[in-house]
């Protein structure tokens, strides 16, 4: 019990020294660390609440995705029935499904076969989610019902979320900020954290916009107001303008070219009017299509539409053959810049809604770090004074263990690259108070054993061995709370849970090994007659 073999001593000292060594980088400015090797530059990353920045939780509009899916199912069904020359009526969406009525009863069976051919096998997942993406059933009479399978919907949402994350990453990168965190959360959410960027309003315009760009011809067969009061001609629809109060437009639904055909978009200034515009360039097939349509429609207006709203509707003066052009729409410089970023990064598959937003200014973050440092140091000094006052020499041993303990917490956080938040700092300070508990348990036990008449060595030995089960019981229950807190916690609260858990583990380690080692060595060297507590 009171003997350590050499290898154990080396191990304990190495762990303690390692903890202190990996704590050091956090005490210096990053510029001072440049000269050191990479593994010595690991610092605790600071949370948004400490360095300032924005946090957005975005939810994907999965209803929009389902609507798109139903649209495309209706389109496929129409084509399949036409190819098979089967007469039908009333093809369209009805709630969560697509319905079609087959004219002749004798065609229903063939129609069912043809429509069932539309179903594609789902790409199998790890969970063995095979099956098909479309369920086709016969309804009452000659009605056939087509419904996307739940698995197909889930897969679609999941894929859309993945591509949204890619798109958002491109957009954020274009803002030129450092190290954004973009994570999938649950089935249909994205967590976005941008350190050092405390303008959530701009972030939201960059991230929240679908940015679906389309070019349409203007339908001049009637005016937009006529179309609203009667009904728009088939194949056309009324689109609002992006400018509030401007009259709406009647446009052909068919798109000439879309944002997918763009290869580049840049903010620039119009050469004549000097107002901010966005210049763009199509890829070769987009350029060809655009050239053909503009050639056929000289003198007629076309509309540039972003997310179903018309930015502008210039008249085609001459065929645009070069595949490039510019969008003007009374932009400010920042608006032109934002639009260029959005167009370059591509559209989102569905709109994203901001359901939670937190942003912290850099000055508040700096104040919090300062407050955290001051509180931490004062907590440390107070605990040190209390322990030395209460236990004398053994108190000094406990303080050594406490220093190593804090070192281990900070080193672990640095190596795991776990984010330090303000509640995390509170966790470290709280741990200082609680961490000495294991030592207190041991010392109190030694005191008791020594009072009951045991010799120094026996009292110390009994003190350690009797205190163990209490230490384990007391700390495991505390750890349990910490783990649940981490599991269910969000954001800064998680940071607190992490430091709390690491702190508990570190304090068990230091109390059981390091304090004991110090006391054993002290016993060996001084051979005391009494226990000094």
């Amino acid at each position, binding site marked *: 019990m009171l003997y350590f073999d050499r290898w154990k001593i080396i191990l304990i000292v190495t762990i303690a020294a390692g903890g202190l060594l990996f704590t050091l980088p956090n005490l210096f400015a990053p510029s001072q660390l440049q000269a050191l090797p990479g593994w010595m530059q690991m610092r605790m990353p600071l949370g948004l609440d400490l360095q300032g920045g924005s946090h957005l939780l975005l939810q994907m509009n999965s209803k929009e995705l389902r609507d798109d899916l139903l649209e495309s199912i209706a389109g496929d069904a129409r084509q399949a029935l036409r190819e098979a020359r089967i007469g039908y009526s009333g093809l369209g969406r009805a709630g969560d499904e697509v319905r079609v009525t087959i004219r002749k009863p004798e065609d229903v069976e063939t129609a069912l076969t043809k429509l069932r051919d539309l179903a594609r096998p789902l790409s199998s997942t790890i969970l063995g989610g095979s099956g098909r993406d479309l369920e086709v059933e016969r309804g009452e009479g000659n009605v056939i019902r087509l419904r996307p399978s739940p698995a197909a919907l889930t897969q679609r949402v999941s894929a859309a979320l993945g591509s949204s994350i890619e798109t958002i990453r491109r957009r954020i990168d274009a803002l030129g900020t450092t190290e954004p965190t973009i994570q999938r959360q649950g089935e249909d959410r994205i967590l976005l954290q941008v350190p050092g960027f405390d303008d959530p309003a701009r972030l939201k315009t960059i991230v929240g916009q679908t940015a679906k760009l389309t070019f349409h011809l203007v339908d001049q067969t009637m005016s937009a107001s006529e179309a609203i009061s009667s009904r728009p001609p088939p194949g056309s629809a009324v689109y609002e303008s992006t400018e509030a109060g401007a009259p709406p437009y009647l446009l052909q639904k068919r798109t000439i070219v879309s944002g997918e055909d763009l290869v580049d978009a840049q903010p620039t200034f119009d050469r004549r009017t000097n107002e901010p515009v966005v210049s763009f360039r199509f890829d070769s097939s987009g350029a060809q299509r655009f050239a053909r349509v503009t050639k056929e429609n000289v003198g007629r207006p076309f509309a540039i539409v972003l997310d179903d709203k018309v930015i502008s509707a210039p008249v085609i003066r001459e065929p645009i053959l070069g595949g490039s052009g510019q969008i003007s729409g009374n932009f400010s410089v920042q608006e032109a810049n934002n639009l260029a970023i959005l167009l370059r990064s591509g559209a989102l598959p569905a709109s994203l809604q901001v359901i939670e937003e937190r942003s912290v200014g850099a000055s508040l973050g700096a104040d919090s770090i300062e407050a955290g440092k001051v509180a931490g140091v004062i907590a440390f000094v*107070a605990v040190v004074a209390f322990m030395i006052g209460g236990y004398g020499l053994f108190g000094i041993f406990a303080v050594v263990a406490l220093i190593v303990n804090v070192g281990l917490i900070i080193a672990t956080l640095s190596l795991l690259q776990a984010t330090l938040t303000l509640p995390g700092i*509170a966790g470290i300070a*709280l741990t200082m108070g609680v961490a000495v508990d294991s030592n*207190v348990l041991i010392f109190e036990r030694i005191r008791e054993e020594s009072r009951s008449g045991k010799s120094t060595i026996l009292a110390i030995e009994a003190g350690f061995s009797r205190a163990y089960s209490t230490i384990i*019981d007391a700390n495991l229950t505390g750890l349990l*709370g910490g783990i*649940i*807190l981490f*599991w269910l916690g969000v954001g800064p609260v998680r940071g607190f849970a992490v430091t709390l858990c690491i702190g508990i583990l570190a304090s068990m380690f230091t109390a059981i090994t390091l304090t004991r080692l110090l006391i054993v060595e002290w016993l060996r060297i001084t051979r005391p007659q009494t226990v000094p507590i």
Partner: protein
Amino acid sequence: MAFAFKPIELVPQHTNIPFASYFRVCLTISGTLILVTIVLLATLGLNFGIDFRGGTLIEIRTTNGPADIGAIRSNLGGLDLGEVQIQKFGAPEEVLIRIAEQPGGEQAQQEAVDKIQASLGQNVELRRTEVVGATVSSELVQQALIALVLTCLGIFVYVWFRFEWQFALGAVVALFHDVFITVGVFSATQLDFDLTIVAALLTILGYSINDTVVIYDRIRENLRKYKKKPINELINLSVNETLSRTVMTTGTTLLALMALYLFGGEVIRGFTFAILFGIVIGTYSSVFIAAPFLIFLGVKRDWSGVKAPSPGSERRAADV
């Protein structure tokens, strides 16, 4: 190596406080506090932060001298934003503004923030904005409750396996007592109750159980040691034996927390206040409620082997 300093003993060697005989008094005090909490929750309720209610929080700092709360209030009152809460936040230049969730989705929230910013004028720096939607806030309520219940359950199971069911029940009753009364304090003071306070409650659970387990551990040990000692004497002995440790650990923890409370900044003041209060009440409940509660429940006296509990303890348990 001579060390001339004699440690100060905060708890004298032969301290013998009859803790168990205070049980009735403490039970009355705690029962009253719990009743008061119930009444407070039913009447005043909790001042839920935006985490749980949805809405927008803005922290500002004026750059031209102390903030004029009255002026800000009358400024924002004319904006038609529904309920607006304005309060000082630490330094005299710092103000916290909270508004309820605006009808009309995400756009409306941003417009409200813009409106507030515009009406506050040039000499104001936006330090922090938080917007929480209704979907998120209801999920957070649910998660917070699950976390609290799961932690209590986990602790119950652990203590039950390591000790006996009476200990587990006593521990969980004490935990419930601590958390509930802390919540009561938040109702009485109408301090902001947000997600960090839930984290604080969970921390209180962890700390209070730590304290309780240390005392229970000693009770179990003494149950093995003194087979014939009356239970209330045995509990008194155990609490007194661990009293020095209780004072030392509570002392260091409170010192660390006081430092955090006083110097850790306004942002975490509510959080540290909750833990500070919770630790005081947790220590009280470990000593005065959890330990004597075992008399009330009746504990197994024969810890010598794996034999079934004695009929006496069975009957006493059934009476409860």
